[in-house]
């Protein structure tokens, strides 16, 4: 048995699962101190199931806590930054393109030192150990405990970052060090940015992980806990304390993974209809398709693995307004739905709840798709308007489906989220509509069923190794990373493999990205 928890901006959801079976679910408001919300939600599902804490083998938590902290610039540490690059990398110093307020808060000190690697692994220069030591002493004197170290082509060979970390640790034992090679992909600025972000969250991560531990202890849950990351896989407590940045944008991923699990589908479109927006994503082999564009978080450019999500302004609280028909047919009733929404004020403002605003939820009640509030308040509603609004909702969603699909074949569509009631029957572009039971807590379920993953992103020489051997090596390394992180070796599957030849360079240099995932060992 395991428990999945989703700590969102508004709600903290929990789900207790026995294998594939959902035993109990609970939705509660998120609390200012994350811990007590988690305790309340877990206690509720334990009580509902009648199970004792000893039957729980693992707790999986999805949280937007770190993303929000960074975006809101809360409790960020100033960072001592070391870039191992000289004589290269001088043209663009660290933090160059950061928003001024963040730069002032997070940019504690910057040292550019000699070292780094070429694309083929040759050293650019030997690591300037004296310069690293000097930086470490300076960071210590300034009281900078958060340290970010990045080195050119660290994804190809991380040895200089590791050596520099050893030097810093020796001279500055309190330092919390983040290495770029363990965080990100090729693309120095984006990887370095993520490394600095991570370092700035390091202390908070330790506190949050401690509060998770305390919450579980309070519940007498003597089991490991894991936190979900943005690619739909899990990290253990120790890893999340070191790499909080990897939780960024895990929310939409969990919701899509939860939808995949609940529906039993691996290739489908998922529509999560909330109060204000519908998030549409595509599942490929059980995982969300990733976005290919650089993602800004809090104004900082990163190359995180993010799901490719299309958000449209349609939710259970969207406003519905009649609009006049076209000039040639003024009698025709047509409506506009959204993009504005009453949001969390739905229970006060919707007509069925005694308010004055006509919302999509009112339309659903009037059409008999849902029952809530007082339907008699909708007695005078024009039937033509209701029909037009339903047609408009279908039009918006089928447009979104079409934009997200990668082939003309109709795909199954999984509907989750509280707003799923808005859809009547099927949708154009959908082979069929699947409305899984417990779709309202898909996020927590996504956290509960997440797997363990490992990824490599390196440049290989096809001329030296040959293509087959290079790909085999990349797969092997990805699998080894997953197993080290706690995956069951027998369940490892290569989920993703991408080859990008390095243009303009003869010599068969190819960048390979491989991702391996597996079930958690021993649960």
């Amino acid at each position, binding site marked *: 048995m395991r428990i999945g928890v989703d700590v969102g901006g508004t709600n903290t959801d929990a789900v207790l699962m026995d294998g594939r079976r959902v035993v109990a679910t609970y939705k509660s408001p998120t609390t200012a101190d994350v811990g007590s919300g988690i305790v309340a939600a877990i206690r509720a599902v334990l009580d509902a199931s009648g199970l004792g804490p000893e039957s729980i083998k693992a707790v999986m938590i999805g949280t937007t806590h770190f993303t929000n902290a960074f975006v809101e610039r809360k409790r960020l540490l100033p960072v001592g930054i070391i870039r191992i*690059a000289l004589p290269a990398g001088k043209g*663009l110093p660290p933090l160059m393109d950061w928003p001024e307020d963040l730069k002032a808060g997070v940019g504690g000190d910057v040292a550019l030192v000699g070292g780094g690697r070429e694309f083929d692994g040759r050293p650019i220069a030997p690591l300037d150990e004296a310069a690293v030591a000097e930086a470490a002493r300076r960071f210590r004197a300034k009281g900078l405990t958060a340290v970010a170290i990045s080195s050119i082509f660290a994804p190809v060979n991380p040895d200089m970052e590791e050596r520099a970390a050893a030097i810093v640790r020796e001279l500055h034992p309190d330092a919390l060090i983040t290495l770029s090679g363990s965080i990100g992909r090729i693309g120095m600025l984006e990887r370095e940015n993520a490394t600095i972000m991570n370092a700035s969250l390091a202390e908070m991560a330790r506190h949050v992980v401690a509060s998770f531990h305390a919450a579980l202890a309070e519940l007498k849950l003597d089991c490991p806990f894991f936190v979900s990351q943005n690619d739909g896989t899990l990290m253990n407590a120790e890893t999340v304390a070191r790499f909080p940045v990897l939780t960024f944008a895990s929310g939409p991923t969990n919701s899509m993974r939860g939808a995949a699990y609940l529906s039993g589908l691996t290739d489908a479109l998922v529509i999560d209809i909330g109060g204000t927006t519908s998030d549409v994503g595509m599942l490929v082999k059980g995982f969300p398709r990733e976005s290919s564009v650089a993602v800004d978080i809090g104004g900082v*450019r990163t190359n995180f693995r993010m799901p490719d999500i299309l958000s449209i302004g349609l939710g259970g609280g969207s406003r519905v307004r009649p609009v006049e028909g076209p000039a040639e047919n003024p009698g025709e009733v047509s409506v506009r739905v959204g993009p504005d929404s009453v949001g969390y004020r739905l229970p006060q403002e919707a007509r069925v709840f005694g308010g004055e605003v006509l919302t999509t939820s009112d339309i659903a009640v009037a059409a008999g798709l849902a029952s809530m509030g007082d339907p008699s308040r909708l007695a005078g509603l024009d039937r033509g308007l209701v029909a037009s609004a339903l047609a408009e909702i279908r039009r918006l969603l089928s447009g979104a489906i079409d934009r997200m699909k990668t082939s003309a074949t109709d795909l199954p569509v999984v509907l989750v989220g509280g707003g799923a009631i808005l859809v009547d029957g099927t949708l154009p572009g959908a082979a069929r509509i699947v409305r899984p039971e417990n779709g309202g807590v898909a996020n927590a379920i996504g956290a509960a069923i997440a797997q363990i993953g490992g990824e490599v992103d390196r440049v290989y020489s096809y001329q030296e190794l040959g293509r087959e051997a290079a790909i085999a090596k990349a797969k092997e390394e990805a699998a080894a990373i997953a197993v080290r992180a706690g995956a069951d070796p027998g369940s490892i599957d290569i989920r993703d493999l991408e080859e990008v030849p390095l*243009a*303009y360079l003869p*010599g068969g240099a190819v960048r390979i990205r491989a991702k391996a995932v597996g079930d958690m060992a021993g649960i």
Partner: protein
Amino acid sequence: MTIDLSIPALHDIARGAAFLGTGGGGDPYIGRLLAQHALAKYGAPPVVALQDLPDDANLYTIAIMGAPTVMVEKLVGGDEVGLAVKALEQHTGRPATAILPVEMGGINSLLPVKLAAERGLPVVDADGMGRAFPELQMVTFNVMGIPATPMALANEHGEYNVISARDAKSAEDMARLMVIHMGGGVALSCYPMSGAEAKRAAIPGTLSLALGIGQAIAAGRRAGDPFEALLGYLRGTDYYRHCAVLFDGKIVDLVRETTRGFSIGRCSIAADGAATADMEILFQNENLVARRGGRTVAIVPDLVTMLDRETAEPITTESLKYGQRVRVIGASVPPIMRSPAALACFGPRSFGIEEDFQPIEDLI
């Protein structure tokens, strides 16, 4: 038109150059940051129009040659940029009086701005392609008989080579070999020329053009239709006015292979709801030809660019992904790019496409 090279202008030029780069030329983000960094340190360089150059001006080009992946990792653009030009000045004995861009695409569009700012020299509002091309013989300077060499290659170690070659293609081949040894990305200065030669061989106004395109897209986003704004701007220019949205759809197939060190590939795009892909784009770093329903609708050297359907952000061939939603835009190029000599240098057949160039205005 004089350009004020403010930071917002750099953003617009980078976006405009990404459009003109037709998918190639590397990540314009890096070029923009390099220029921005230099501007903050040294102030903005003056921009000089091609026709205002004295005939005896000494012009030097600057570019980065190498793999975009190396550029985004090593952040090329440090001291080697200044060194390449310095090495060439030493070789010719003529100190630079202005910096001349060689290509208006990706990273290389803004590198001259960075160097001009550092050196306190003007940057010329012109270049040798009005777009991006993969090889250094593919430039109007070569078409008009300006020798590519002497040229200098420099890296971050302070190493440099001055090359003399029998022709531009041979210079390209030698440089390509040297780049590997020198770290995968080097600064390069080639085609040193006088003001009189530039007036004959360069394409005027291309820095302004990139700026105008970038500004049009940005203004169009605010007004709600970046594509209409972009096409409206192009239609108001002398040479790029034959332009159109060639296709609107979703990438449904993407084949890449690496041959002779180039990223060569084919991208198939299907219209929304269509069962089969109806648009095919062939690329070799840059997009070369767009075929709709099997029929060519735009072909190199005319411009073929894929843009994000929502934002009109130009997409580089490196970042193309299965499932992306794009619009394809085609546009004409200046007559100097379409002459028989120019087509022999960078027309369809120089990229292995066995068909004749046809102007986009005859195809759409």
